[in-house]
């Protein structure tokens, strides 16, 4: 089976699971981490047991994992006493990092220590990598003047999907979205340089030479073609 790790409110994950095709797709939420049945012994990964959708699943039956949850948020833990939520969220995130890292099957994306969906770099680091990979970038400038009344955080300045003219989605060796082939190749090159198989890449246009704006390691996969490519990637049928 394929497993999607997602928020309890993730409609994209639910739609993806509903179109499972030949594979059963189960959704794992933080609620599953509060069920008896988990067993993860570092020296014996083949003996592992997981809980998916409330059901115990032997580790070897899991053939691929799509992670759509960068961390376990406290807001997902309504079933945990409020005073314990921060600690439990941190423990669950740490557990998932270790468990996902131990899996031998395809995992999109492989987790990084600060995010279960892959690198959690700040925008400047993505800009640097993009520039060094050959994408056109505009220099990012952040000014923090003492007691500036205006918010001055990286997130405020970060270009995001809302400002993007063109969104390309890289899934393994394929790129989805309408843009010049050169731009698609650049998106794939960036994903490769970052070591991720699944990446949304935002540009300010669709033509060759369009400027890189930002990324998303948990892109929208609701389109049927993208969904099929993700399933193929999880099945190991597509290089990723």
């Amino acid at each position, binding site marked *: 089976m394929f497993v999607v790790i997602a928020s309890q409110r993730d409609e994209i994950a639910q739609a993806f699971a509903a179109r499972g095709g030949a594979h059963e797709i189960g959704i794992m939420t933080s609620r599953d*981490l509060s*069920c*008896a*049945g988990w067993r993860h012994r570092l020296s014996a990964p083949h003996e592992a047991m997981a809980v998916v959708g409330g059901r115990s699943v032997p580790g070897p039956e899991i053939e691929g994992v799509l992670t759509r949850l960068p961390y376990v948020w406290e807001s997902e833990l309504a079933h945990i006493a409020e005073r314990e939520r921060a600690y*439990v969220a941190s423990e669950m995130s740490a557990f998932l990092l270790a468990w996902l890292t131990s899996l031998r099957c395809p995992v999109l994306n492989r987790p990084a220590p600060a995010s279960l969906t892959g690198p959690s770099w700040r925008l400047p680091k993505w800009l*640097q990598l993009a520039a060094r990979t050959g994408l056109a970038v505009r220099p990012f400038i952040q*000014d923090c003047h003492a007691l500036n009344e205006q918010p*001055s955080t990286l997130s405020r300045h970060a270009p995001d999907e809302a400002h993007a003219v063109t969104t390309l989605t890289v899934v393994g060796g394929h790129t989805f979205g309408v843009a010049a082939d050169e731009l698609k190749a650049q998106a794939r090159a960036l994903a490769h*340089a970052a070591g991720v198989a699944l990446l949304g890449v935002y540009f300010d246009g669709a033509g060759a030479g369009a400027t890189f704006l930002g990324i998303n390691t948990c892109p929208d996969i609701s389109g049927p073609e993208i969904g099929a490519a993700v399933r193929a990637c999880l099945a190991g049928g597509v290089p990723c």
Partner: protein
Amino acid sequence: MIVLWGIGNEQLLKAVHEAVTEIGHTPVVIDQREVLCTDVQLICAAEVAGYVRTPTHSINLCDITAAYIRPYDARRLPAIERAGPRSAAWRHALAVDEAISAWSELTPALVVNRLSAMMSNGSKPYQLELIRRHGFSVPDTLLTTDAAAVEEFWARHGEIIYKSTSGTRSIVARLRPEQRADFVRLRHCPVQFQQCINGRDHRAHVVGDEVYACEVISDATDYRYPVGASVELRACRLPHEIEDRCRTLAVALRLPLAGIDLRLTPAGEWYCFEVNPSPAFTYFEAHTDLPIGAAVARLLAAGAHAAQSWPALSAAPTHAAQVSA
């Protein structure tokens, strides 16, 4: 230029300042207590540039060859906490933290240690697996929500301990029979259990290529919290093979400075439990006279040359490596 970023009067920052000064350099401190009087401009593209202006210094970020960073959460600084989350002071403090943190990830200067490299410590079993892959024996470890699995694991090893899975500091404790009554709570969240390894604790501090080790003589399960038991630290030399393994592990974890927790069993086997990416080396220095601070100072003085071993952007693994362990 050597820069120190953190709370100016914090013990480790002061120790590094003193050690760097002793070898003839003049470190510049970006003191978080002065965050409201600190300006930062960060310019990023393929390279990173900009400046930091404190009440006493104007620092061109391109002039920095090495940095020792030990930042505290600026929101917990008294002035910022008093001002509150909706204040300009709060926003400014966060923005300064973010800008300097972002710089520390991008700069070609030596950074001791990059914040991203410290993250492996946020999941103990994740880090333990990395430790195992680099040649150390590690204790058998189970994470579970299942009481029956704990019973099996306990029966297999005789004595087991439990501790937090995340980076949250916890006291390592042996599991006692009367705690079976608490097993019903296991279902709330996976809990980490480990085979109890008997032996003598050792702490190795890796500073660049140098290794400073001491043994810990104590009967406590967790010598950091001895609860009445005595603790004695003695400087020692590790076998060359173990020293080399410590160096390799520190490089693999991208940590120019690392505190590695080891245990030597009566049978002569070396186990590794954890790598602390921001070790409070002054405690060990004070009890053993090991010159760890001086080594940190020399490492910082080596600057960009030493940084080649700990680059800002780690090489990206291939996609094949990403999806298959």
